[in-house]
């Protein structure tokens, strides 16, 4: 018996939900908080049942209330996404039910689960009980396909909220989030100035990529912390990560070393970033980025 807590984004289902169903290995019950994304969830292959959990508490995110309301129908092994909201729901549900939680799991084999620790500097394998609560790292489990036609039922269940959202602030830019993107191009201090990030944005537009940054740039040039990659920023897991003018400090590597392919552009042949790069280019960005733009448009 596997229950999947659907990850929602705005008013629709987040694609990571299909990865949770894939990891469940069929016969999953999907819970949709506030009923959001229920029809989409029902169409994922391997979903046996969708339960729309509806109540006033779902109008804004409140981890305690969501965990309590969803917890009344969640049973067996419970899977959620290892995102901000998924982790919080899992942690509270685990504490409420007395079931231990393991966050950010990257592989599951029966009751044996693996997860990165020390920001990816080591891995650990744990044995969990049959009924356990696991959050899964996005983009590590293969997504279940579509073609499902599960029945959708509704449970009316609310819970007391302890928080209230007073103001929503829209994203400063329409750019993709580094944590969600399949391709990320990040710049560091070697870019010289915040204005020069426009060159990275142009490449990002060609690739459909998100733009990221090192902490040096965020702290010193006032770029948004929401695009910082690393130990105290976001952990990214794209198919392709391009680091430009980033030295590759251990705290930066902590956030991107699990990317499938890494390209580094740096003028210093000894920069540590080359130690994790699949393809390293020793050059200044002033020379390399125009060449990259050309090569991409010639593909």
């Amino acid at each position, binding site marked *: 018996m596997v229950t999947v807590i659907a990850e929602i984004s*705005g008013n629709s289902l*987040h694609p990571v939900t299909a990865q949770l169903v894939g990891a469940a290995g069929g016969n999953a019950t999907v819970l949709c908080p506030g009923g959001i994304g229920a029809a989409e969830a029902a169409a994922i292959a391997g979903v046996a049942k969708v339960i729309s959990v509806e109540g006033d508490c779902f109008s*804004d995110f409140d*981890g*305690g209330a969501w*965990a309590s309301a969803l917890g009344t129908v969640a049973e067996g092994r419970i899977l959620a996404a290892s995102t*901000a909201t998924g*982790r*919080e729901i899992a*942690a*509270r549900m*685990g*504490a409420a039910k*007395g*079931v*231990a*939680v393991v*966050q950010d799991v990257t592989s599951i084999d029966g009751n044996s689960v693996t997860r*990165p*620790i*020390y920001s990816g*500097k*080591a891995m*650990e*394998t*744990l*044995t969990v*009980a049959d009924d356990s609560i696991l959050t899964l790292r996005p983009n590590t489990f293969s997504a279940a396909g579509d073609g499902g036609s599960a029945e959708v039922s509704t449970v009316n269940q609310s819970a007391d909220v302890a*928080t*209230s*959202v*007073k*103001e*929503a602030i*829209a*994203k400063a830019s329409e750019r993709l989030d580094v944590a969600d993107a399949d391709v990320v191009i990040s710049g560091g201090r070697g870019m010289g100035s915040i204005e020069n990030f426009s060159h990275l944005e142009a490449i990002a537009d060609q*690739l459909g990529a998100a733009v990221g940054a090192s902490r040096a740039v965020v702290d010193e040039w006032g770029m948004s*912390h*929401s695009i*910082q990659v690393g*130990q*105290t920023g976001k952990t990214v897991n794209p198919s*392709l990560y391009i680091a430009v003018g980033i030295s590759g400090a*251990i705290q930066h590597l902590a956030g991107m070393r699990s990317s499938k*392919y*890494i390209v580094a552009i740096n003028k210093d*042949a000894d920069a540590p970033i*080359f130690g994790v790069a*699949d*393809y*390293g*280019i*020793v*050059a200044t960005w002033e020379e*390399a980025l125009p*060449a*990259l733009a050309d*090569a*991409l448009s010639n*593909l």
Partner: protein
Amino acid sequence: MADIAVLLKQVPDTNAKIMVSGGRVDESAVNKWSMSPFDEYALEAALVQGGSITAITCGPARAKKMLTDAAAVGATDLMHIVVDDLSALDSNQIATILAAAVEKSGASVVFCGKQAADTNAGSTGPGVAEMMGAGCVTMVSELTGDSSGFMALRPSSTGMERVNVSAPCVIAFDKMGTELRRPNVKGIMMAKKKAVETLTVSDLGVDIGSASVSLDNQSPPAEKPAGQKFEGAENVATVVTKLRDEAKVI
């Protein structure tokens, strides 16, 4: 002004190498232990609030030094719950211990990190909140107001949002825009004299049961094959072709 408890964990410094031997991370090979980075922001936010601030840690004997460091910047009370091997505890056991320590401190507001730099979990703040029956806001990068009505800035799926919460509550901090304060000489001298209340789990009078997760093995991350390195921007086109044909990512 409400009393605040700050949960601080001592972890290997983010610059430290992590060595594994015999299927376990070798703690004796860690050259420097530090306060977990997000916990530093939790402490800073508490210092901005002022009043009585109890710094609480659960961990082995070495963790006491971190409490002294917290006192040097202004924590008023220090509580050390001695547990030799934290890796043997599951998420609910650690939350149970810390919730009991918070109760003992008398605080109704808890500040902690969004995740610890060793576990990277993010389970503890919400777990403690559940046990306190309190509200919780995580990933907070800005905080205004006081315990009668905090306003916390956190990310949302459409950007950011300001969330109102009041005591009893737990706030789990992300990196904030503010500078962290550094101790001055006077602070360091005073901290050396500050008493640390040292307790065992049984002193707290809680039953943490047995762990339902067990650690089998820790290992270094999988080795990556050595990459290909090219000198000069004239090779960019070659790399792009390889990204398409070898890596198949564009």
